[in-house]
């Protein structure tokens, strides 16, 4: 048996901390797991005797289910913990909670938390491998990995491809992780949305900034449309959902004006009729459901590779 290739990091805190080889290794591993997932018997024993804690300090349905399924397919033992952000305000509580769970001999922690950097904080205090399933407005690395993996399935190598991220960039962890991941894979990245939802200094990350939806649709090969994060907006960044949908929503009429066919992606959950219209979400441009399928394979790959770092 060949020596298992290893990730360069002990944790998956963000795409920022991975290198291109890591991303390639995750993709290769995910591709083989995707093949497994299409077999009649979908379960492999790779993580037998590994205990994974899924700690969700913020609401999540699809990411939590996706991780849980990935863990089950790998035969890991699982414990789940959910708590709304309101009941967990202080880090001592976070540390205490996690240390309590780790005292029961847990090997890996998958965590979602509303505070940017919460996983860094945890990594300084605990030994287990940590996978970031979203930290506030910072990163959501497995989402970016599954997005890029899905794009490559459709378009091949992303080198030189134009990817535009539409919508609420300011409150999005998906945007940042996507930017870091796509740039590491050689793609050109643009962000497009209302100026109040685009961080002022984001261009310094090497992305283009546009406020023109039609121009950006024409420019891109892939449109990754982000959800309007109403729950993370402490003040009004735009006047109304109606106005947003009219001027920044992606609809069929806009796509029909293009002289090419572009891929439509969305990390979900969709606000139908706001950032994306139903006729686009359900069209053959859309690979939204493929993204979900690939999510399980990507998360299996990440879990598997981190477990191999033991």
């Amino acid at each position: 048996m060949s020596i298992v290739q290893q990730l360069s990091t002990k944790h998956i805190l963000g795409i920022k901390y991975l290198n291109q080889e890591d991303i390639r290794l995750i993709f290769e591993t995910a591709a083989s797991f995707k093949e497994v997932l299409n077999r009649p018997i979908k379960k492999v024993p790779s993580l037998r005797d590994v205990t994974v804690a899924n700690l969700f300090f913020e609401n999540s349905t699809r990411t939590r289910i996706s991780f849980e399924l990935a863990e089950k397919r790998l035969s890991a033992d699982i414990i789940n913990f959910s708590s709304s952000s309101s009941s967990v305000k202080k880090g001592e509580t976070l540390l205490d909670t996690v240390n309590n769970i780790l005292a029961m001999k847990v090997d890996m922690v998958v965590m979602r938390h509303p505070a940017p950097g919460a996983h860094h904080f945890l990594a300084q205090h605990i030994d287990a491998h940590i996978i970031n399933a979203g930290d506030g407005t910072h990163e959501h690395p497995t989402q970016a990995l599954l997005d890029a993996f899905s794009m490559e399935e459709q378009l091949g190598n992303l080198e030189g491809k134009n990817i535009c991220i539409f919508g609420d960039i300011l409150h999005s962890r998906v945007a940042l992780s996507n930017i870091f991941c796509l740039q590491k894979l050689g793609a050109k990245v643009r962000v497009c949305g209302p100026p109040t939802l685009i961080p002022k200094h984001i261009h310094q990350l090497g992305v283009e900034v546009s406020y023109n939806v039609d121009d950006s649709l024409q420019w891109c090969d892939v449109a990754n449309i982000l959800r309007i994060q109403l729950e993370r907006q402490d003040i009004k960044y735009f006047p109304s959902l109606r106005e947003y949908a009219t001027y920044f929503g992606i609809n069929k009429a806009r796509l029909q004006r293009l002289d090419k066919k572009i891929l439509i992606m969305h990390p979900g959950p969709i606000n139908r009729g706001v950032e994306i219209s139903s006729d686009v979400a359900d069209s053959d441009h859309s690979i939204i459901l493929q993204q979900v399928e690939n999510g399980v394979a990507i998360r299996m790959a990440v879990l598997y590779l981190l477990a191999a770092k033991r």
Partner: protein
Amino acid sequence: MIIRQATVLDARSAHHGLVRDILVVDGVIEAIEQHISDQSFPQIEGRELKVSPGWVDIGVQVCDPGLEHREDLESAANAAEQGGFSTIFCLPNTSPAIHSKSEVNYIINKSAGLAVKMYPVGAISLNCEGKDIAEMMDMHHAGAIAFSDGKRTIQDSGLMLRALQYAKSVDGIVMHQPLDQSLMMEGQIHEGIVAASLGLKGISAMAEEIMVQRDLRLLEYTDSRLHLSNLSAARSVEMVRQAKAKGLRVTASVAVLNLLLTDEALQEFDSNLKVLPPLRSEVDRQALIRGLQDGVIDVLSANHIPMEEENKKLEFTYASFGAIGLETVYAACKTWLGKDISDELLVQSLAICPREIFGLPKSSIGVGQKADLTVFSPIETWEYAENSVLSKSRNSHLIGKKLEGRALAVIR
């Protein structure tokens, strides 16, 4: 007490720049000679010793009364003395706030006999809430050295106007740390590429600049006296430069951390570096250093804000702002800024300027003068070990670090 072979740094002294033995008896300088042979007094000795008028920190959060789990007058005094300060100003963000003569008296009475001299700063507004003006004249006559809402910034321009006007009746100084809260919003660190890449909301330099602009206009209108505390942005320095050139009675200070570090230091989410004003860009840092060098910025401050572990050992966004610094001002400057900031400049900004601006008793190094001295060594190396910290709080990124340069004694 005899200070042995120390270089005198005090431009007003006849011994300035010379190596001297200094004999202090009962708080008075009895003799300054090339060599004093008397061996019967306790000695302060060391390599390359320097002696200057006692250092002053004009903005310390003493947390007493009310927040003594973070700091109290005694621990603040001990930390200040350890850092070479003979005098500190106590900011009014206590509980209750120093917003009437009772609290002013409390600080003055309770600090008598402590290791350093303490001057209370009276609040501008009741409870430092930025609404109703506090009894400034009463506090002045009770001994308040200046007026400020400390770490709370004055958002209401009308209140700032009245404070500047009212302070004129006693030729008082209004101290203000400029920051527009509505522009800061939920900001955590300097608005720039680091904030953008960490997913943290930024505090734009503009949030400070707009306040500096407002304050300077109000100052011009009122012809009063203003001290802008802890500037952090390059444009703020520029505006103060122009205001001084116009003849406005404005002075300014900078916090050591803003000279030392930029927002790059926050890549690992170190909550001990979550401070206000925030660590800004390299352009800002360089402008602050230049401002200090050419005298636009008059005073260097520790911006000492003690904070208990429960408010710091947290996810970054939940952690409170602030860092302690009284014990490490000189060492931090010597260790990382030795090339940019000479000992002469440090003495100027830690002792000479604050004493002049706020009208503290003149302290010059001459025979017969009352002793108020700081003795320090630029080459002494030491570790800022956690168990040696004299502040009650531990929120410093320097804990555990090896440092060069140390204050050795305060004599008063």
